[in-house]
């Protein structure tokens, strides 16, 4: 046991491991807060679609040769979030088909571009790390960490200040509109924040696994708890603990960070679901 502790202490003397921990916990916190709303509003698919768009945007950024890939990824993902939200509300166009189309399209074109134009010697490795986030969390620079802290602060502030309005729009959009809440503007805000979180989370778990970070903690909390506030708090706690556990385990056993965190989330979900099934008997 002390041996394990010493190993951890050794690893955490490196700044990049500390950065990974800070960023990982912040991303886990933000994504789980928003996850509750997204799952309840039946918007989980937007998270999935956006993560693929972000991958496509990153491919373009790499091909163009930008050192700061955020310049392209952030605006493209935010704009896609707004567009996807529009199609999701428009019943004339099949919302789910539109999302599937955009996300798979972005994935295919992105991979193609990287393959054709990338100057890197290890294309497969690059792609794998963008999709599954295997290394990028450990190569964060100090400025990226600050960017992440800033964005997390914005997300938290928005969520706390708009908490009551977000609840109303999530539970009953028609009633909320009737009482004078600008529901469309609020939906837009939720979509933009979702896009921000997804771009941030790409560093942590990679673009394919982001949805797991958004969905699993929310679903776990919902299976057991009976008020919106407790679901939100529980989901945040689950997500932060799973992220911490995932990062520690991956450091100790050199497993990929992203999939270790997601596995922890799945394990918690399984436990919560089992408990709720037993309670219902």
């Amino acid at each position: 046991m002390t041996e394990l502790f010493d190993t951890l202490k050794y690893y955490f003397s490196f700044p990049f491991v500390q950065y990974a921990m800070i960023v990982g916990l912040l991303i886990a916190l933000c994504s789980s807060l928003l996850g509750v709303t997204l799952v309840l509003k039946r918007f989980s698919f937007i998270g999935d679609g956006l993560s693929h768009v972000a991958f496509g945007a990153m491919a373009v950024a790499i091909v163009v040769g930008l050192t700061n890939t955020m310049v392209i990824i952030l605006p493209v993902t935010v704009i896609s979030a707004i567009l996807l939200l529009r199609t999701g509300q428009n019943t004339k166009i099949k919302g789910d088909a539109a999302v599937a189309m955009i996300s798979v399209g972005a994935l295919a074109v992105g991979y193609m571009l990287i393959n054709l134009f990338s100057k890197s010697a290890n294309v497969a490795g690059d792609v794998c790390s963008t999709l599954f986030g295997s290394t990028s969390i450990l190569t964060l620079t100090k400025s990226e960490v600050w960017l992440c802290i800033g964005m997390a602060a914005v997300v938290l502030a928005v969520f706390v200040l708009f908490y009551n309005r977000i609840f109303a729009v999530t539970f009953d959009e028609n009633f909320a509109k009737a009482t004078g809440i600008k529901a469309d503007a609020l939906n837009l805000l939720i979509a933009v924040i979702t896009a921000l979180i997804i771009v941030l989370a790409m560093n942590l778990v990679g673009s394919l696994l982001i949805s797991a970070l958004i969905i699993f903690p929310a679903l776990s909390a919902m299976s057991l708890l009976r008020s919106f506030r407790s679901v939100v708090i529980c989901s945040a706690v689950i997500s932060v603990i799973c992220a911490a556990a995932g990062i520690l385990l991956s450091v100790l056993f050199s497993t990929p960070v992203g999939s270790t965190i997601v596995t922890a989330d799945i394990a918690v979900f399984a436990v919560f679901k089992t408990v709720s099934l037993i309670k219902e008997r």
Partner: protein
Amino acid sequence: MSKQIICHNAALGYEGSVVVEELDFSVAEGDYLCILGENGSGKSTLIKTLLGLHGVMSGSIEWGRDFSSRDIGYLPQQTPVQRDFPASVREIVISGCLSKLGHRPFFRAAERKLAEDNMARFGITDLADSCYRDLSGGQQQRVLLARALCATGKMLLLDEPVTGLDPRAQIELYELIAKLNAEGISIIMVSHDISAIKYASHILHIGSRRQLFFGSKDDYITSKAGRSFLEAGEADQE
């Protein structure tokens, strides 16, 4: 009795296309107006217009003194999202106070008191910490009524409130709404249920795209539109 809503030769619709026109009716303080009509007759467009979510395309809707669309407490139809929503009764009821929030982010003691009072009014204080999805259909409608009355005490607009309730819960809900009406709250109820008109003081019947009848209930029962609707309804029930 002062008028709260006066609708004069109004045409309603959205995105440039007219859904229903020639609407002429009014609601006075203490009225119980029942709006009848088949699906697609423009009832939901009328609701949205009364709530201030759509404009009037031609004609006019005038509001009484000290009255506006914000003074209407709304009881929408249930959505699939709500059936498995993890929220406590208290959280839902107090969300009716959002219109009183202005630019503040959080509720104050006055709003929490209002929510408690309205829960007591509908006898759901014991359920305050229960989860909405565990309640019966009738209890859920009481929660939504309490929420609507947190928003306003002047007028309630109910959209097909008895849909999905068992017959006994339907009668209980109708009696409850009649009691609120007796306390001075104006009621507008949208329905295609023939038993809804029993409690109403006025009827507005919308046919395909235009108004078929507006007037008191007694006049409606003897009118041509009323007789054909009632006969069709009775045939349905048999």
